[in-house]
């Protein structure tokens, strides 16, 4: 299975990555990642899915170098961050800057000259449909508009790899549709996209490959077609089979029916995980 096999042409590859943080005054160790093996190939639209606290955001942060792994190895062939674009989950941008100023600021961080900054900002504003709001302060943007300007800033350096953390969260149907169109266009342009999402319908529609995370591990990886072969009723049903339904009354046997994975990997060991956004010490 691709996420666990070290094949050639991988743009991103994580091998046995672990991450333990220490929280609270007593510096209690909490393991977030327990040996993540993941490979993303050039041109993929790769969906990283899993329940809350599975370790998806941490995996992306380790990939970007925002967190150092406790163990294992990270191979990002585009290590020079100039080739990577990133949109964090629910980001805050600068309230008193206009969309155009914000993009120009991001471009300047890559050392681009004034002419190039203007050209890229104009092009991206057009690409994400924000031309009309280019000179409006960001505090007046809707959530959907903020998400689109966030994607635009992730593309300011014309990256090969675009990492999007929950790009559809909190958006209304129109906002979701706009973001989906942008992701589809990035794919058509030959870029590699890796995104986290809880919205499985979007993952099914957009992704070429997926990996399912639970309890800090990848418990399934493969193409969307493979997943749908396993569960013809759809990706949601497949997901529920893989991660298990942890509601009271659902048996352990049902939870353990995992295609291509060990049952104990899926069940996890019950240790607490750090929720997204919790700051490790």
């Amino acid at each position, binding site marked *: 299975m691709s996420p666990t096999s070290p094949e050639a042409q991988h743009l991103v590859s994580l091998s046995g990555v672990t991450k333990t*943080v220490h929280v609270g005054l007593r510096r209690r160790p909490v393991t977030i990642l327990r040996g993540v093996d993941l490979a993303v190939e050039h041109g993929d639209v790769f969906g990283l899915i899993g329940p809350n606290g599975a370790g998806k955001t941490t995996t992306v*942060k380790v990939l*970007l*170098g*925002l*967190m*150092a792994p406790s163990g294992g190895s990270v191979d990002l062939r585009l290590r*020079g*961050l*100039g080739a*990577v*674009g*990133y*949109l*964090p*989950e*629910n*980001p*805050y*941008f*600068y*309230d*008193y*800057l206009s969309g155009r*100023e914000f993009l120009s*600021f*991001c471009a*300047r*961080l*890559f*050392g681009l000259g004034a002419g190039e900054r203007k050209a890229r900002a104009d092009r991206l504003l057009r690409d994400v449909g924000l031309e009309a709001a280019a000179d409006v*302060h960001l505090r007046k943007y809707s959530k959907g508009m903020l998400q689109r300007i*966030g994607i635009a*800033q992730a593309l300011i*350096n014309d990256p090969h790899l675009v*990492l999007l953390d929950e790009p559809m969260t909190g958006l209304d149907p129109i906002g979701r549709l706009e973001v989906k169109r942008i992701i589809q266009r990035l794919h058509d342009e030959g870029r590699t996209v890796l995104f986290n999402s809880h919205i499985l319908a979007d993952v099914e529609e957009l992704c070429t490959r997926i990996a399912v995370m639970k309890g800090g591990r990848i418990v399934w990886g493969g193409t969307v077609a493979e997943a749908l072969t396993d569960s013809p009723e759809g990706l949601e049903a497949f997901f529920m089979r893989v991660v298990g339904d942890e509601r009271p009354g659902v048996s352990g046997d049902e939870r353990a029916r995992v295609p291509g994975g060990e049952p104990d990997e899926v069940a996890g060991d019950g240790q607490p995980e750090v929720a997204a956004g919790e*700051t*490790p010490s």
Partner: protein
Amino acid sequence: MNQVAAIALNTFRETIRDRVLTVIVLFALVMIVAGLWLGSISLEQQGRMMKDFGLVAVTVFGVIVAAFIAATLVRKEVEKRTVFVLFSKPVSRAAFVVGKFLGLAATLAAVVGGMGLFLFVLTLLVGGGASGMVLVATALIYLQVLTVVAVVVFFSTVTSAILASMLGLGVFVAGQLSHNVLSLSRVGAGAITEAVSWVVFVVIPNFNAVDVKAAAVGEMTVDWGSVALWAGYLVAYMAVALAAASFVMRRKEF
């Protein structure tokens, strides 16, 4: 260097457009004008009272703006994940800290400089003669305010925004009194007390040593050599605070 300049310019734009800042500055200007009224009820002391009151207003409002805006700005970027956007680009943690500081320094130059200039013009028009010392005193107030910014930037890398602001204000107040610690320790104290006092004296910036407000209103003369020495000490203090903030940021995981 390009990244530092970009972050500094961005910070300046973001803060100077903030309406809270506008309100604070307008209030400060009203307070400076209120010095006119105080002067009018002080027999033959109008100019002196106005300068005195005005320089205190410049100091107080400059420090308030420094403490609250610096803490909010840096902490907000960490808590609201804006730093993720920056650090996923070729921006070092030190560039972030220095860029934020320089942007705030530019904003405060506009705020403190603007208030000082307003006071200078006011004394020129109605205060019974302007004095260049008002501008010199304003410049040294600016130096103190910048030191508070550096301290607050450091604290906001390790604690919450409100606590960082309070600690910054605390350091400013303690800095007004730090020379007294040394004086007190010499009054019949033992060697250990004196040594501890020295440490406190060095760790807490001595703002009193660069305070020339009294000279600006003609109450005393200034030892410029000493002022220059202590101004250099404040610059070094800022450098240490920013280096410490960069160190903390570099070790921080987000």
